[in-house]
């Protein structure tokens, strides 16, 4: 599964993207965030306020409770400021 990061989430994680092997039992976006936070302080920092970071699965916005089953690319980013 590919993870991609944008804006200050990218800066805090310290990479633009990575391929991860997600262990069994990680069913939702929220589960994935919890698992990532256990991987190092850069993730802890990026997701320190979980309510702020947004997620998208395969280019579609999702809520923390969304299932990640079958996802090819999951993105994490701050609230958008385009326009």
């Amino acid at each position, binding site marked *: 599964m590919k993870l991609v990061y944008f804006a200050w989430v990218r800066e805090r994680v310290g990479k633009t993207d990575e391929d991860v092997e997600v262990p069994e039992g990680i069913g939702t976006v929220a589960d994935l965030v919890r698992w990532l936070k256990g991987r190092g302080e850069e993730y802890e920092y990026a997701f320190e306020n979980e309510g702020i970071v947004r997620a998208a699965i395969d280019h579609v916005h999702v809520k923390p409770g969304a299932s990640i089953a079958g996802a090819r690319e999951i993105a994490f980013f701050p609230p*958008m*400021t385009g326009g």
Partner: protein
Amino acid sequence: MAHTIRIQAEPFDVAAETANLTAERADIGAIVAFTGLCRDEGGRLVALELEHYPGMAEAEIDRITEQAEKRWPLLGLTVIHRFGRISPGEEIVLVLAASAHRTAAFEAASFMMDYLKTQAPFWKREHLKDGTVGAWVEAKEADDRAMERWA
């Protein structure tokens, strides 16, 4: 309805985009063009840098466009959003909405902007006059509220 969506680093030409919408037809009575420009924030900024999520930006704007087309009787809809480094006074975003009558064109353009601001995966960061890279622009609650009025 034909619509045009482009994500690009280059500037855009509002007149040329408008001409594309209206060419060879006489059923359009109203065109609303919204242009978003980079401000210098009282001289504080030398540029805004826009990061985007390639692939998702196009897909999300396409979804927003489809919603607008279902809601209003549009005869044309164009969205161009730039990324990269943009100087004060330069254009960032263009929304063109065409319809037979003005209400649909005004509402659709306003709707598109409210959704672009809060749903399209773009992020702005400030480049300051003193040469340093400033903060990421924070999302505004007012923008979320603006979007909610369309719910």
